[in-house]
């Protein structure tokens, strides 16, 4: 690889790092609080968390008919 293409590649890396350095960062405590709040707000609508009755369960095993 020629040295000028090395320089071109390196310039791209620098450009990318400049872009990533410019990100506005939120405090971890704020981010964590927001994630928690989302989980708690949506907990009631999370069937894997709340469970479900067998009549509401789309994957429940097929009922077998039996003669009484």
């Amino acid at each position, binding site marked *: 690889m020629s*040295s*000028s293409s*090395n*320089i071109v590649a*390196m*310039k791209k*890396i*620098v450009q*990318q*790092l*400049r*872009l*990533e*350095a410019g*990100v506005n*960062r*939120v*405090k*971890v*405590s*704020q*981010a*964590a*609080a*927001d*994630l*928690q709040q*989302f*989980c*708690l*707000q*949506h*907990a009631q*609508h*999370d*069937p*894997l*968390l709340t469970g*479900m009755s067998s009549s509401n*369960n*789309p*994957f*429940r*095993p*097929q009922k077998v008919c039996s003669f009484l």
Partner: protein
Amino acid sequence: MAAEKAEMDALKKECDGLRAQIEAARKAVNDGSMSASAGGVEAVGRVQLKLRKNLKGHLAKIYAMHWSADSRQMVSASQDGKLLIWDTFTGNKLTAVPLKSAWVMSVAFAPSGNLVASGGLDNICTVYNIKAASPKTLRELDAHTGYLSCSRFLSDSEIITASGDTTCCLWDLETGKQKVVFTNHIGDCMSLALSPDENSFISGACDSLAKLWDIRSGTCKQTFSGHTSDINAIAFFPSGNAIITGSDDCSCKMYDLRADQEVIGYQDTSLNAGVTSVALSNSGRLIFAGYDDFNCHIWDSLKGEKVGVLSGHDNRVSCTGVPADGMGVCTGSWDSFLKLWN
């Protein structure tokens, strides 16, 4: 020559400076740990899901599965050279799609339910119309120079692919041509996930990095490090503000996009198997992670604790997925079976 060396040295110095700047900026906002602030949150307790269906049909290792947007149909891909489309409510197979190449690694369902896509060691993403009388090849997307590890449809006219050639790509399905190529990873791309608002996507690669991309401009907006081996699986937290990764280093991590860093890790000294797949429950509270140890372990995403396990497969769990309505989890394995749990 000397001038070029001087320029190169200056660029390297700028690089190092920028990396240090990014680390310092991340540290500056790192004012508390996620697990500490989750101290006040009630524990979820032991999560015990039951096996509801065992789907038999494939004759070889299952490598990938994807739920349809209707939360009822699901497509699976196996190296027996077939895609199977299942009605998960009845356990019936609706359609079988024979593949030109049996070495499949990825499968995707279009949101419309009309199309599925698959690809693997053939380097090609093949899109099939499954609503035709018999499955018909719609397009062969052939431009990657490495294996196809993952694909996700934006619509019936656009799809994003991830490849072992280290790039991801946005394709126009009407022309079959590449619209945008996403280059920045320095290792095979293994997995991708679309953001809930579909303006961005995330990719995980063998360079142990996760990257956030703007779909339209093609730019890499953020890069997340911390894993010490290949990232095999990646998913968005449902709010769109965080991502979960699973790696060959036997851990999962959550990175917050707004804090631009890892906020919690999910690892256990007793777990010495690589993570192959990740999926989240609808509230984001539960992480379902498939491992090489034949199990799918369940993590409390806020507290970082293991809260359950889905056991039953006789080989590596290769893929995991939760449908849009959140009513269950599907695991697929090298043992050739798919299991549904809730």
